[in-house]
Structure formats: C-alpha cells, structure tokens
C-alpha cells in the first residue's frame, strides 16, 4: 500500500470503527471486539508508515482545498510520526483497560463512550499528521468537541460544571488566541504549511514576533500553560480511562505536540532567537506552581492532573529554550510522559475499581493488596521524577543538557527544583502503599487486584516505561530527524 493510502487508512480506521461500534451496540462483547480490532488495525497502519519516515520519506496527502490556497492536507514528518505512534499504541492498551473499568464500575452509555473515544483518536491523528496550521486547527477544535461528551460522561451537575470549564477554557483560548494567530500567520506568510526552518522568513520581529508566539502558546490551551490550565483538573470528573488516554496522552499531548510543531516548523528555532525568553519564564513558573499544588492535593486524580500540568510545561520550556538538544528532549518527553502518566492514571482507576478509594491519605498499605498496580505506579512515579531506569530520565537528560548548552541557568534551576518537588509528591504515595500498615477500618474490607484486563494494561505500560529507558532508539531517531529535516 502506498504511503498516501496509509495516511488515509490511519485517519479512516477509527471512523469506520466508530460506525462498527455504533452498529454493535446491542452486543457488548462484539462492540469491544470491534474497538480492539480497530485499535490494532490503526496501530498497524501507523507502524507501517514508520520505516519510510525513518528512511527520510515524507508522505503527504491533500484532501481538499477549503479556501483558495488553504488546504485540508496531511503530511507525515518525524514529530507527527512520534505522536501518532504514541496515541495509537496506547489506544489498544487503553481499550483493554476501559473494558475492565467500564464493566467493573457498571458505567452507563458505554457505546457512546467507545464511539467518542474512537472519534477522539481520529482527531488526534488528524493533528499528528496535519500538514499546515489550518488543518491542525480544524482537528484541534474537533478534538475538544468530541472529548466533551467523554468528560461529562456521568451527566451529573458536577460533570456539567467540569464540562463548562473544560469547554470554556479550551474553546475560549483557541478562538480568542489560536484563530487570530492562524489568520495572522496566513496574512503575513501567505501560507500556513509547516516547513523545516519555519515559514515566517524574518517578516516579523520584535513585539510582533513575540506577540504571535504568545497567541500560539496561550491559544494552544491543551498544553495547559498557566493561567489557562484549569480545564485539566476540571476534566478529572471523567471516568478514569478518559483521564488516562485523553488527559494524559491524546489531548494534552496534542497541545504540547502542537507547541513543538509550531515552534520548529512555523517560527523555526533560529527565527525565534531572543523572542522566547518570556516563555521560558512562564513555563518555568507553571512547572513549579503546578508542582506545589500537586504537593498539597489529597485527591489522587487531582494530584496526577497537576503533575500533568507541570510535566506539560517541561515540553514547553524545552521548546522555548530553542537549543537543539532541549527540543529533542521535548519530543522525547511527549513519548516518555505519555507512557508514565497513563500508567499512573491506570493505577488510580484500578485502585478506585478494586478498593473505591480516591484520596492519597486512604492508601495506607494498599501495595500489599495490589502489588502489581502499586509496582506499576512506582515505575510511573520514577519516570515523572526523571530517575533511571524509567523513560522520564532520558528526556530530562536531554532537556537539562540543552538548558546547559544554552547557558540558561534559570531553566536549569527550574528543572532541578521541580525534580525535588516531583519526588516530594510521588514518593510518599509509594512509601505509604508499601510501608504503612493497613488501617483498622480497611482490615474489615478485604480486596485484591482490579479486574485482570486493567492489571494487564497497567503492567504493560509500566513495562513500556522501562523499555523506553533501555532502548529509546526510535523516538530519539525521530526527534533528531525533526531538526535535521532529512537524515
């Protein structure tokens, strides 16, 4: 199959899957089979694109011309390849997990849940493969709208309010900032096509350049840069699989992926020199402030959500440093954080399903009852802190090297301090789970691990987190190719 067809297949597979899920709504076993088959087919399509991209091919597909000169078009470049691999690979694992979670908790409207999930993945792939800012914007907005029913899945007042914050901030930022940025880019450059080295060609400088960068950075609200981060904790009202795949992987990664993509392919690293210092400061502030909030959060999902806010800003910070090494680190962190954070969310959901616990303070001794879950949680925590042998170490290493190479001591300090903070809010959980005795109250409610599919899924992602430390070759190669253009 030609690479162009593979792109179309990758975008179309989840759509076809969504129809299949809708048709099989009466037989849940069939429906889940359709989901898993679709996810597997999608991963095959995406993986089939990989060898070509690694060898330097840049397959492209032009779908239609929407406005004169403005196409809905796709092109696979290394960074998008990486994001697509992460999103489609984790969809399979997440589907396994969802089946255990949704059945274990007797959730309502499961068919709608799986349909929206498939559509959200399609939108994420559209973002990954977008050939220009316009296409990226289209799928970015679609992703927001499609995930809204997932966030508000429970239909309660709390879900509705969470949904309001979610939608208000994401649509608000994208309409207020991203859309003007897009039109302005078109107005200045006459194109919005991503190109190595940027497309502005020095036509903007000083205030206008920094202003456009600000419009993009705050407009890409999914990257959760402060002060537009509130949607992320609000989205935690969703069922845990949604938090796991969407708010640890697809949605937030769509945000930081777009940040890196815009910095590298619209502005160009050289084109931004001197205009991105403020962004380092804002991202640094977000990293630290979110970590402090996480430190004080007792609700486990809330702690994870603020940890995500903080980790996302690592990517923004690394991109804003404009040093090649740190930008490689940014790309790597997209993959590394995805694997680690999905493990953590999976573990949180498993704890909720098996023990009905949501607060950190309730977790005394739970590691002895759920050793697999908490073992995986420990691996994920290591990755967040950036310790070997977890994937987070590799990306942090590159970021730190980049910051030092650029002699950006503020950034170095931020990374060091935040590592300590990360340790400060993750290690106590692990310690509590394994070394504190089970409380007297809990002794009377014995429970074991969560349903098997869930445990399997979270063990798999934990293993992936470790594997990425020992062999980061593929993501590394993709990240480096992104900067060199061609191998």
């Amino acid at each position, binding site marked *: 199959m030609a690479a162009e067809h593979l792109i179309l297949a990758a975008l179309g597979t989840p759509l076809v899957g969504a129809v299949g899920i809708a048709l099989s709504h009466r037989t849940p076993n069939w429906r889940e089979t359709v989901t898993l088959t679709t996810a597997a087919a999608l991963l095959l399509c995406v993986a089939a694109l990989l060898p070509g991209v690694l060898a330097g091919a840049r397959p492209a597909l032009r779908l*239609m011309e*929407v*406005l*004169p000169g403005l196409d*809905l078009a796709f092109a696979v470049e290394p960074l998008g390849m990486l994001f697509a691999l992460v999103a489609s690979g984790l969809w399979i694992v997440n589907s396994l997990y969802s089946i255990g979670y949704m059945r274990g908790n007797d959730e309502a409207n499961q068919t709608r849940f799986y349909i929206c999930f498939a559509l959200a993945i399609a939108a994420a792939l559209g973002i990954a493969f977008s050939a220009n800012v*316009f296409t990226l*914007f*289209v799928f970015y*907005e*679609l992703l927001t*709208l499609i995930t809204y*029913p997932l966030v*508000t899945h429970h*239909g309660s*007042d709390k*879900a*509705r309010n969470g949904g*309001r914050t979610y*939608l*208000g901030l994401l*649509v*608000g930022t994208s*309409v*207020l900032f991203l*859309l*003007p940025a897009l*039109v*302005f880019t*078109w*107005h200045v450059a006459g194109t919005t096509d991503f190109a190595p080295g940027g497309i502005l060609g020095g036509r903007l400088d000083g205030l206008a350049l920094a202003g456009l960068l600000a419009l993009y950075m705050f407009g890409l609200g999914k990257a959760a840069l402060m002060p537009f981060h509130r949607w992320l904790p609000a989205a935690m009202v969703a069922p845990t699989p949604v938090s796991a795949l969407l708010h640890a992987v697809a949605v937030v990664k769509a945000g930081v992926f777009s940040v890196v993509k815009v910095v590298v392919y619209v502005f160009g690293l050289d084109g931004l020199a001197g205009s991105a210092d403020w962004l380092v400061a804002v991202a640094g502030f977000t990293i630290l402030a979110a970590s402090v909030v996480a430190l004080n959060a007792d609700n486990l999902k809330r702690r994870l959500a603020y940890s995500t806010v903080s980790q996302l800003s690592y990517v923004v910070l690394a991109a804003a440093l404009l040093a090649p090494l740190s930008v490689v680190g940014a790309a790597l962190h997209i993959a590394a954080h995805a694997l680690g954070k999905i493990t953590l969310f999976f573990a949180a959901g498993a704890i909720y399903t098996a023990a009905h616990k949501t607060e950190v303070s309730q977790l005394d001794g739970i590691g002895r009852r759920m050793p697999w879950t908490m073992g995986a949680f420990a691996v994920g925590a290591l990755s967040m802190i950036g310790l070997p042998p977890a994937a987070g170490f590799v990306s942090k290493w590159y970021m730190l090297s980049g910051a030092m190479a650029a002699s950006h001591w503020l950034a170095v300090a931020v990374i060091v301090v935040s590592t300590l903070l990360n340790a400060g809010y993750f290690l106590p959980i692990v310690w509590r789970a394994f070394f504190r005795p089970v409380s007297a109250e809990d002794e009377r409610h014995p429970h074991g691990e969560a349903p098997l599919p869930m445990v399997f899924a979270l063990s798999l992602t934990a293993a992936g987190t470790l594997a990425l430390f020992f062999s980061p070759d593929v993501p590394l190669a993709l990240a480096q190719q992104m900067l060199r253009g061609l191998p």
Partner: protein
Amino acid sequence: MNLAAHLPALQVVLPLAAAPLAVLLRGRGAAFMLVTLAAWAAFAVSILLWLQVNASGPISYAIGSWAPPWGIEYRVDSLSALLLMLVCGIAAVVLPYARASIERELRQDVHYLFYAMFALCLAGLAGIAITGDAFNLFVFLEISSLSSYVLIALGRDRRALVAAYQYLIMGTIGATFIVVGVGLLYLKTGTLNLADMGVRLQEMTSHRPVLAALAFLTVGISLKLALFPLHQWLPNAYAYAPSAVSAFLAATATKVSVYALLRFYFSVFGETAVFKRLPMEDLMLILALAGMFVASAVAIFQHDLKRLFAYSSVAQIGYIVLGISFDSVTGLTATIAHLVNHAVTKGGLFLLLGAVMAGMGGVTLARVHGIGRVMPLTAFGIVLCGLGLIGVPGTAGFVSKWYLILAALEKGQWWLVFLIVASSLLAVAYVWRFVEAAYFHAPRADLATVREAPAGLAIPAWTLVGATIWFGLDTSVTVGSAARAAAMLLGGAP
C-alpha cells in the same frame, strides 16, 4: 422563441403566476404541488442563470422589450445570481417541509392561502434580487413584505398577530423611507434604472438631496434588514410565525435586504460617495459591533429557543454589516459569503426547531429537557447548526469568520480581531444553553415517549444541516461567487 433568453423573466414570473393559480385551485394538495413545482423550477432557473453569469458575464433583460433605461431592466450579475440561487434554493427546501409542518400548525382551510402567500413572498424576494430598476425594487419589496406579514400572522400562537402587526408598522416605515429615498434620487437624476442612476450620480456636483436620499435609503433598508437597533420587530416575528415561515424568512428576507443595501451603496451611490466622503464606515462599524454583542448577550438570557436564535440572527447580521464597513474586497467577500452561510445554517436551525415543536409541543428550554434522548437526531442537528453559528472549523460559519478576521488584519485593526472572536464566544454561551438542556436533564415525564421527527420534516432540515457542513469544507460556490461579487461591487472584474 428561445426560452433560455427569457430565463430572467421566468425567475420571477414562475412563482408570481403560481400564487393566484394556487388560490384558484383551492385544494391544498393541488396548491402545494403547484407552488412547489414553481419553486423548484425557479431554483433550476437560478442555477442556470448563475452558470450563465459565471460563463459569460452579467445578463441584461429588457422586460417587454422596452430598452433600458426607459423600460424596466432585469439585470443578473454575480451578486444577484448568488442571491437568486439562495432564495429559490431555500424555498425549494422549505416547501416540502411546509406541507408536513402546516398540517400540524394551521387550519386546513387556509392551507391554499398559505401556499399562495409563500409563492408571492418568493416572487417578491427574487424580484428584488433580479431587478435593475429602483422603483421596481420597491414594488417587489412591498410584495414580499406584505405577503410575509400575512405569513407571520398565520402563526398558531395568538401573539403572532401582534408580532405581524409590529412588523407591519416597522416594515411600512422602512418602506416609506425607501420610497422617499428612491424619489429623491429620481428627482436628481431623472432615471429609475439603477445602473443609469449610478452613472449620472458620478457627474453630480450638488450633494445635499443625494445625501438625503442616502440617509433615507440607509435607514429604510436597515429597518428591513434588522440592523441593530432597528431590529425590534425581528425576534417576535421569527418566534411566533409558523415554523416553515420562520425558517424561510430567517434564511432569506434579511439577506435580500442586505443585497438591496449593497446594491444602492456600491452600484448607485458608489463606494467613494458612501465611504470616503461620509463617516459611514464608523457608523456601520459601531452599529455592527453593538448588534454582535448586545444581541448575543440578550440571546443568552432567552428561555424560548426560537427567540434565542432570533436574537442570534440579529447578532449575525452584525457580522454581515461589519464586513460592509471594512469597504474592502475581503470584507465584502465576508459579507456576501456570510449571507449564504448564515442563511443555510439558520434556515436549517429553524426547520429543526419546527420539528422540535411538532414533537415536544413547544420550544422553551424547559420543555426541551432531555431532547437528546427522545429526539437524538434532531437535537444533534441543532447542535451542528449551533456549531455553525459559533464558527467552528468545518462549518460554514468558520469560513465567514475567517474572511472577517482577515479583513480586520488587512486594516491592521487588532482590537477588531479580538472583538470578532470574542463575540463568537458569546455564541458558545447561548448554544451551550441548548446543549445542557438537551443532554443534562431527563425529559419531562409526559414527553418521555416522544418520537423522532417524521421524514417529511427531517429530510428538508437535514438538507440544510448538510449544506452547513458542506459549505464549511467546499467553498468554491460560496466564497468563489462572493469574491467575484465583491470584486465587481468595488469596480474590479465583473
């Protein structure tokens, strides 16, 4: 005799002749068949005209072979061709819907009169778009207005009578202003032919009566197009008219008035006279912005969905007028594209609201609780149209917003860019009131067994919903025509 040469006449004659014939036939089935066939034929004619204009430039047709400027000229250029296609296309979709809809909403013995009035209204609106004669334009305006007063008054709710009366008063004042304006122009130029008037006005040295004419026409037409703050008649008229009428008028009546404004401004007075010598840019800008924000804000607090979306129309008219105020090709492209885009979106929306009315027995927010569960398709269609109003990419509304923002950027007016996008956030607020009512509440106990809308209502409605999406992805017809028309109005290529 070559039929193709008489297409411009057929465009108006078909629906105009259908009206009295429908009255003579009296049977509601026969009247429906006749008027629908006339509308479809008119739609076909408008497509042929559009193709012809695109291929070989503007068409001039002398009624009764009396050569212009003495006789009445019908003139089809890229702008009027687009408008004709819009008006006839919407009529062609709404009429089949009307059959199923008025079955529930009107007494059977007035059905044939409804069809007759509908045909008259269509003839009037098409006539405005096609005529090249100022007085003839006024006559068609009156034909369409009088018939629409009747159509609105047919509404089941007794408040429809008051709404129609209110519209009648305001509409008549508007028409009076227009006829005074036309009279003044005739006095100064001695001609009623629009193109001829335009030529003669360029040679004028004394301006006062011309300025007066401009003022009268601006106020009169602004009343008809419901420019803020002259929009008072619109919400009630849309809210209490029969569903099919709300949809047809919302999609066409104000749009044709905008056409008349464009015609007078750019083809008669000329861009220089309106925008360079007078502060019209600022005036229209301020009124447009006020409409966008005030009407959107009012829409957020409505309890009746028809009123809510009627106020949204006033806000959207703000966008349309904003495009005119830029006085640039991009701005006019935005205006003309949004004429079409908003017409299909709002038309579809009101058709769906008619289906809601049929199923749930009303369109207040409290009544449509849980409609996402009992009428899932209809509710989803309303959401799609709502996204079109917000201007989400992939819908027609996005295309218009794109050009508006681009036009503001071309002028270097960043503050306007932010006002435009901010006002679309207000649209999110009012659309989401429906979303939350539809999906976050259980249906009322007595409405829990309501079924999805019948095909007779659903198919026409979804045709327009589909068009909303289609025009968001393939803009060759809308933006293509709009860009040609804008260039023509500003004196470029035809």
